[in-house]
Structures are given as C-alpha cells and as structure tokens.
C-alpha cells in the first residue's frame, strides 16, 4: 500500500511559503512517499490555505518522481477551459505526474460565485470534464454540452502526451457516484476523504455497486488525518485500500513526514 501526503498550503511559522513547500516536498520524495495531494476545494474554502495548483507547482519543481493530485476539484464552480489550462500547465511543469480528484457534490457557498446557482453539480462536472479532455487531446477542439461549447479551439499546452488525466471520483452518495460512473463508462480511481473506518467499509461497498460489471480495477485512496495514519494502516490494508494519505493542516516539517511513514 502506498502512503501519500495531502496538506493545506499554510507555511510553518517563520518559513516562506515556497521554501516550506520545497523543503517538505523534497523530504517526502526522499522519504518514500508515493504522492502529494492538494486538498479539495471544499476544505480549502474554509481555511487560510494558499491555492492548491500553485502549491502543487512548488511540489512539482522540488521533486522528480512522486505523483501529484488534487483531492477534490469542484469543476462545478469553474469554467472548463480556464481550469483545463491551469491543469495542463501544472502537468507540463510536473512532467506528466498530475492526477485529478473530483468533488461531485454541491459546492460550498464560499467558492460559489454569488448569484450563480449550481443546480446539477454532477452534470456540470461531467460536461466540463469532457470539455477539458477535448482540449487536452484534440488539435482543434470541438465540444458541445449544456454547460460548455466550442469549435475550432486551439489549446496549448496540452497535458503531457496529450492524455486524459487519471481521475479519482471523491466519495459521495451512491446515486451521484452511479450517475458519474455510468456517464463516464469507467473511472480510474475513487477517494474517501476522512471517512471513519466503519463508514469506509460502507463506502467501498457503494462504489463496488456503482461500477458496471466487467469494470477494471479502480484505485482506492483513503485520506486520514496525519496522526491517524499509523492506526489506520492495518484497517486500510484489510479493506483493500491502495493508497493511504496523511492529511496535514499546514505544510509539514520533514520530521513530521518521517513520523507519518515510519
């Protein structure tokens, strides 16, 4: 089972933001962590964290190997083309290491544009993900949906290799998950954000039921508060979790990382 990190991009006292992230990221890679995740939009919205894309940019520049991910991107509050460029640029700086976690629930007020109601977050997420993938993969992008439409669009940079990013659906209600999976046909990963162990088992059953028969393996990621990582290892292995992610409320000190992976 892989061990990853997620954190709010708040620097440790006395350190500048860029230095704190670079130091921690290098230590994480040297220490054997598999990934570094930015927190989800709904968590960031209620904290003083810096922006996740720019925080991950700093991680990307300080590392060579570890995977980078967003733990819960709310596409329902962002124009697809704007987000597509931000993600493709980050992937370019990271040399193709970016993965995308998606938050399918109703976005919190703190990040919703005033006066703009999101009646169907799953629908707009599906529309915008499709639009982004078109921009990443097609030389002249054409796309039409209820949310976003374009034709003859030239988008550069593209994701490295002009690929679709590996996507992880963040756990939500069974009907929403089912709709997302059915519309997409397949998903790469599923992620549970700070679920209690008992709830995790139920959530795993829900995602298993949401997958169509014959669906290939789905990577399962479980985010837990950093102090709970050691206690959660056995439970995660037993439940078939592929990656356990330690969540810090600020950029961790290298010593804290060692503790989490020990």
């Amino acid at each position, binding site marked *: 089972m892989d061990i990853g990190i997620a954190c709010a*991009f708040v620097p440790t006292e006395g350190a*500048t933001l860029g230095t704190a992230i670079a130091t921690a990221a290098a230590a994480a890679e040297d220490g054997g962590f598999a990934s570094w995740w930015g927190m989800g939009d709904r968590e960031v919205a*209620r904290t*003083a964290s810096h922006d996740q894309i720019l925080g991950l940019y700093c991680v990307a520049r300080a590392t060579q190997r570890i995977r980078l991910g967003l733990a819960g991107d709310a596409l329902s509050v*962002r124009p697809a083309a704007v987000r597509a460029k931000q993600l493709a640029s980050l992937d*370019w700086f990271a040399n193709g290491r970016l993965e995308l976690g998606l938050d399918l629930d109703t976005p919190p007020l703190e990040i919703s544009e005033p006066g703009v109601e999101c009646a169907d977050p799953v629908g707009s997420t599906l529309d915008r993900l499709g639009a982004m993938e078109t921009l990443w993969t097609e030389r*002249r992008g054409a796309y039409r949906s209820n949310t976003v439409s374009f034709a003859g669009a*030239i*988008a*550069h940079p593209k994701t490295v290799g002009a690929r679709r990013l590996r996507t992880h659906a963040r756990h939500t209600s069974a009907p929403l998950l089912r709709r997302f999976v059915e519309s997409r046909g397949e998903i790469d990963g599923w992620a549970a954000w700070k679920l209690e162990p008992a709830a995790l088992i139920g959530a795993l059953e829900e995602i298993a039921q949401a997958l169509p028969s014959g669906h290939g393996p789905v990577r399962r990621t479980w985010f837990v508060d950093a102090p709970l990582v050691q206690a959660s290892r056995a439970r995660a292995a037993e439940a078939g979790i592929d990656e356990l992610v330690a969540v810090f409320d600020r950029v961790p000190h290298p010593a804290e990382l060692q503790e989490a992976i020990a």
Partner: protein
Amino acid sequence: MSGHEARGGVQGARGRIEVGLVDLFDGSPERDLAFMGEFARTAERTGFDGIWMPEHVLFFEKYDSVYPYPEAPLAADPDVKEQHNKVVEGKAQVETALDQGLLDLFQTAVAMCGATTRLRFGSSVLLLPLRNPRLIAREALTVAALTDGRFDMGVGVGWSAEEFEACECDFKTRGKRCEHLIHALNDLWALSSAQDVALPQGVCPPRVLIGGHSPAAIRRAGTAAGGWYPWNLTPAELSDGLRALEGHLESAGRTRDDVHVIAGFRGVGELADLSQIVSRYADLGVDGINVSLRMTVDNYAEVMAEVAQTLGLEGEDAR
C-alpha cells in the same frame, strides 16, 4: 531610498521609469523551463524591470471577432501609427502561430520570479471576467506570496467573442462584469486582511492595473484599481488618457500617486529608435513602459542587450 530608486535608466516626468518586456511562454519544446529561466535572468541582468505575458485561454482557427490593436506607433515617429496585422474580410486578425498556446499566467509568474531576484512579472493582460472572484482572490494572493510581491496583475476584458463563449462567459456584458470583479477582489482582500474571510493571511495583494484605453477602462483605473495599462497609443492619445484618468482620480478622492501607469506598445521599427517613443511616453508622466519586441529563441539575448544599451538601462552588464 530603495534599491529600485537608486538604479539608473530611463527618467521621466515622475522619476525613474520601469521598463518591461512583453513576451510569450507557451510550453513548447523551444521555450522550455530552462529557456524561461535563462530568458528571465538575461532580462534582469541587462537591466529590465519586468517581464509581462499576455493571456489567452484558447486560440481559434478562425475568428469573427476583430483584433482591436492592429496599429502600433512607430518607434522613430510615435505620432504616426502603422497597421501590421493581417486583415480578413475587413477585420483585423490577431497574429498567432499555427498552434499557438500560452502557459498559465500564475504558474509562469512563479517560475520567472523564482529564476530571478529582482525582476517583476505581470499579466498583459489577464481576462478577469472569465474568473470566479472567490477563487482568483486566493490564487492572486498565492502568486504574491510565491513571488515575494513581484507580481503585477494587469486585467482586461478581452476582444474574442469566441474565447468568451468557450469560457462560459457573456461577451456583451464583460466590461460590467470586469468592474464587478475588481470591486469583489478589493472587498475580499480587505476582509482577508481583517481576517473576516478564509483567505491566506499576511500577504499584500498584487497591484491591479486596468488594461485598455476605452473611457470605461480609464474610469475603472481611476476609481477602483491600482493602475492603468494602455496599449499602442500615440503620445497625444496617451496624454488625453492621462488627463481623463486625473479627472476620475479626483472625483474618487484619489491622487495620481495612488495609481501606477504603464504604457505598453509593440516595437515597430529599428531598435535604435526605441528611445524616441520611450522618451515621449516618459515625458508624459508614466511610471512604466512595456515593449513587445517579438524576440526569438535565437536572438533574444542580443535584442535585450541592444535595447538596454539604447535606453541606457543600468543592468549588471552595463556596470
């Protein structure tokens, strides 16, 4: 006196003028990360104050929209403008490569400032109406933190209806939306400093400059923003704009010292003649001048050196 004031270079009616370069970083193999760093360090070493990059989220194979800046003042005779862009069916077209792209502005800002120690980086200009204010408020504070305050946020309303439609934004009301977003950002950043909203703490927001020279743009600059950033104006047009700006500043209870004015232009003509247009702009009382020189991967270092020498910039290479 700050180190900035102590340095020499172009002098104008309001003191030393910041001179910036406008160029593109597109994620192409030719303009990779190593190139970007070397480009930034060369600009810093030769005495330039900043690098500015345009924004387009998307380009299009075909435009019905008219490119609004086809004419640029001549370096040798800035009272005269020449048109350089291609015209199709009576409509001026933007000049782009066949597969044109641009990296994300904010990540590029962090990369370029990370490669240098003094150089500023600016957006020339960011399409503000395409953004969710509650998200860009945080992003801009993070750029400010990661560049040690060396980021300037030029913002504008764009010109491509194709781009706005693809970015899910109404083209016709983009000016009004831009103004709304400027106020929203000011409010969010003010609340942030009072710790009333969950945004990064202890970071000074970037200076916001309004791009363009329409009456509405000048009004926004004078009443709500930290600066004005017109493009491709003759000295007479710039003078008129500055007079209008003063009027708006006065009506808003502000002074000329409350805003930073940068005049930008596409360099047309001989590099040796650039000092003429630069001195005309400088005499009118701008704080900065940005020039787009269409430099190539092969000639940028030579061009920067020649322009620096022509303008008397005092970079390390001149000392």
